């Protein structure tokens, strides 16, 4: 995993440097098919955080030269117990926003992107504490439970990352996310441990990382003629036979 990441970082940095250094092609064929992805990092997170199971898919589609509409959706199940508390949570989330590609396409079909973007996220979940125990030094140990309740939260995200085409229409990519909570409806009886799609429910802000594989369903939408500024005035009209 680390080697692949290193490879992607290296390739993308290389691309960033060379794309700006080279003269653009005169003709660019743009493929604007929808790109569907699966977040592989969620499976790794489960290994390190066995109390939570996450699943996340994403999609993006190019709407202008460097502008993408992007979104993610997913599911979270959290369950843990320790000597004082049993906790369960189940919920879903969705995010929608835009990504802006900082790279210029180099050649026909070039689809690697280095992007920054923003998202609006919304999560809804049901959580409960089937059993809790309080050890009071004066009154002894007592138990209670908190019945299931459905809550929601919304947040904003800033995202930066890259997607690199490793095979035709197959991409690998990662991104970093900074999330800040806009609103959550909570009660003092139970603070969500995890807000699906946002992260730790007790915090106002969270950071996250995604590492994903994507497949672009290719749709050849547009053929665009670009003329290099240096070439202006030297382009001859096609010869005609008289």
């Amino acid at each position, binding site marked *: 995993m*680390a080697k692949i990441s290193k490879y992607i970082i290296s390739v993308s940095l290389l691309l960033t440097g060379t794309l700006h250094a080279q003269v653009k092609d005169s003709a660019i064929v743009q493929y604007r098919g929808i790109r569907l992805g699966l977040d592989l990092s969620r499976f790794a997170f489960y290994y390190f955080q066995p109390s939570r199971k996450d699943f996340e898919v994403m999609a993006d589609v190019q709407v202008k030269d460097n502008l993408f509409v992007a979104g993610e959706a997913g599911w979270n199940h959290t369950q843990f117990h320790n000597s*004082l*508390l049993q906790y369960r949570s189940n919920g879903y989330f969705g995010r929608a926003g835009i990504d802006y590609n900082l790279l210029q396409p180099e050649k026909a079909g070039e689809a690697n992107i280095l992007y920054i973007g923003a998202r609006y996220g919304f999560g809804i979940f049901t959580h409960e504490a089937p059993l809790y125990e*309080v050890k009071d030094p004066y*009154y002894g140990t007592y138990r209670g439970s908190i019945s299931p309740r459905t809550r929601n939260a919304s947040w904003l995200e800033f995202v930066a990352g890259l997607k690199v085409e490793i095979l035709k229409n197959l991409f690998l990519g990662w991104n970093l996310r900074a999330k800040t909570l806009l609103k959550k409806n909570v009660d*003092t009886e139970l*603070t969500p441990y995890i807000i699906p799609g946002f992260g730790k429910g007790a915090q106002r802000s969270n950071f996250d990382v995604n590492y994903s594989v994507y497949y672009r369903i290719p749709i050849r939408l547009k053929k665009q003629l670009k003329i290099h500024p240096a070439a202006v005035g030297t382009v001859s009209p096609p010869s005609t036979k008289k």
Partner: protein
Amino acid sequence: MLLSVIMVACEDDLKRCDQSIAARFKIGFYQKIAGKETDTALQTLTLYPIGLPNSIYSKESGIRKALLPLSPLADSTRFYIRPDTLSLADTLTIRYKRKPTFISPGCGYTTFFDLDTVLFTRHSIDSLKMIFKQVTLYNGENIKVYY
């Protein structure tokens, strides 16, 4: 590697509790001399919840403020209070609503209280004033007791 460390650290909060989760009812002791309120240190204070085997304060001197545990198992707690060995004892009955409150995954729950009424006998106590109704981890003085 760094990610692994972060991920493992992320679950520490399920096991660790670094704070006190005891919500305590706070009493301040005062005197009114010529209409002016001054806090007073009780000489040999004895104070405990009636029904519990041990005193919270047993003939302790110099006490200006007392921290007391309200019962999380009932909607009222009754205290025995005697300011010194020469005075008669009084009882304080605190009525409240209990609020189970989530602290953190590692600390679990505790009970906060919303005070309703305070009843008291007047053998030695002159009067009493409720200041702050919430009993939480961070509350100030809940009542003032005047001798």
